[in-house]
């Protein structure tokens, strides 16, 4: 049985991510599940199952994310520090990290040495977060993944002027009722979300490269549009969603 030195738990507003690393910081396992309202029980049952294949008796546990208060851990560290750490260690580069999750977005400036220099984050507002797209997805009964595909392959675009999730949703509905093509409207919706993120990036001062984390980084339309807006190809880890949990696990290794 392999010994897990440290476990990072990112209890986000939307999903629960768990990453285990060995002494060298090499990832041994990753788990991503939809977040249960009782995240403490969900975590415990996952950890119990892990015991069948890994030695986690003496693992350090570092929790981050929205639900971290509920989780038993050796350390609690904010998502900002954890995502920055995960991204920095993954790419071995400073620059601008953008984490777009279900409910929050963060733009983090990372120094060459891996320190957080500055950051900004949305407040009580779904603008520019996963929820912005999900709202409309639920309303139209189209999965978010499918929406991204529609936007990516659309040959036209309808301007959605609002970056507010509630107003944007009603704008979408009114465009559709006026007979605009679904994919054109969906593409416009993605653009509105990306514009919001871009303005946050400029507000803090863009320092390339742009490195993405969080579930929304799996949305290819968002990635492509970010490239269009910033004129810079974003770097994306194979699994961007686990970067926070990975960073948390790594922070468990340091004293």
């Amino acid at each position, binding site marked *: 049985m392999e010994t897990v030195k440290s476990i990072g738990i990112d209890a986000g507003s939307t999903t629960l991510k768990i990453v285990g690393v060995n002494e060298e910081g090499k990832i041994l396992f990753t788990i991503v599940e939809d977040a249960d309202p009782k995240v403490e029980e969900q975590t415990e049952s996952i950890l119990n199952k892990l015991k069948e294949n890994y030695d986690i008796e003496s693992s350090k546990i570092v929790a981050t994310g*929205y639900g971290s208060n509920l989780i038993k851990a050796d350390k609690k*560290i*904010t*998502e*900002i*520090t954890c995502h920055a750490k995960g991204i920095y260690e993954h790419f071995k580069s400073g620059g601008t990290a953008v984490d777009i999750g279900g409910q*929050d977005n963060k733009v983090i400036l990372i120094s060459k*040495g891996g*320190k*957080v*220099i*500055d*950051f900004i*984050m*949305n*407040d*009580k507002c779904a603008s520019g977060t996963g929820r912005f797209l999900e709202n409309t997805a639920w309303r139209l009964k189209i999965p978010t993944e499918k929406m991204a595909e529609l936007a990516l392959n659309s040959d036209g675009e309808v301007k959605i002027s609002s970056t507010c999730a509630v107003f944007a949703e009603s704008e979408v509905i009114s465009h559709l009722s006026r007979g605009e093509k679904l994919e054109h409207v969906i593409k416009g919706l993605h653009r509105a979300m990306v514009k919001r993120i871009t303005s946050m990036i400029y507000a803090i001062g863009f320092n390339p490269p742009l490195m993405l984390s969080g579930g929304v980084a799996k949305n290819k339309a968002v990635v492509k549009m970010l490239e269009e807006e910033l004129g810079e190809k974003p770097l994306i880890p194979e699994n961007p969603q686990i970067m926070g949990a990975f960073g948390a696990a790594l922070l468990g290794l340091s004293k």
Partner: protein
Amino acid sequence: MLHIKIPTRREVIEKAKAEGKKIAAVYPIHYPRELFRAFNIQPIEVWGPPKTDTKKANAHLQSYICSVVQSGLAFYLEGGINVADIIVVPHSCDSLQGLGSIYKDFIKPKQELITIYLPREKNRENVEFLSKELKRIYKQLAEFTHFEPDREKLLEEIKKEEEIDVLVAKFYKSRENLPLSSREFYTILRAREYLPVELFKNILNYALLHSSSGKLKKTGIVISGLLPEPMEILDVIDEMDGFVALDDMACCMRRVYGEGSADDPFERMAERIVNSTPDPTKGSSVDERADFLKSLIDISGAKGVVFYNVKFCEPEYFYHPLLKDKLNESGIKSIVIETDINEPISQQTITRIKAFIEMLKEESRWA
């Protein structure tokens, strides 16, 4: 932790009434406490109050007004100010000036309404202007109370406030040596907003007795803004092993006035207010404010600045990006958080403050 029993506003009001004192409900920010005390009037400041239901007030106000004025009006409409004999509205900003007009033109309260026009820059003309303004208020109070405190009485009250200002400065200086949480520290400091002079002095002196030589080994933060509300923010700072080392807050440090030099009581009161620390409601320059914040950092050894921005507080907005840049140039990190004194702080705000302190700690580790 100290166990200090601080009377509540209600208790102070009841006692003052029983002693035959008149009560003045005073809105933010600057006013001469000593002038009111000389008339045997107990000033009770109205900073909100926080967590007020502002429904009734909202009908009379534009939706983009700050929560301090929203609650301030709601509090009146709810009858919260009924106990007062006098209402004082300093013209600190457009919103408070607007509130003054609402009182004067629409509400026409049964209480005596006093407005104070406050000058902006620090200069001789403004001391003269404010000195005249205070004489006008003296006359209004004299007519209302049928009492005319003489020069000696005025000077006596001024001296008492000057003494308290020195004591408050000492309280700040001892911050690191006091076994108080940030919330406790500010609860004590802010009791000045409604306590009689002697009582407040006793409380400060008692707290200072507990000052020890051991310093708090925590990350110091300077907070800047109007008032440290919601107080949960202070708890978050403490929870992260931080503490508020000094402040640039309208309700606290910005009203620790220096000693006046004039022998004329009105001039002396005016000098104290006009020469106070840099203040956005006085249109202080960005450089003055940045230098002041830097000096607070230097004195206290704090590591960064948290700007509390009461949402829609128009005087503060303009400065933040510029102050952030200026502080950055000197290697000082800062963060702006938006607050509403009537709403609980958001999870995102908590995360941002925590991440800010993590960033400062990391910084110190590398330094």
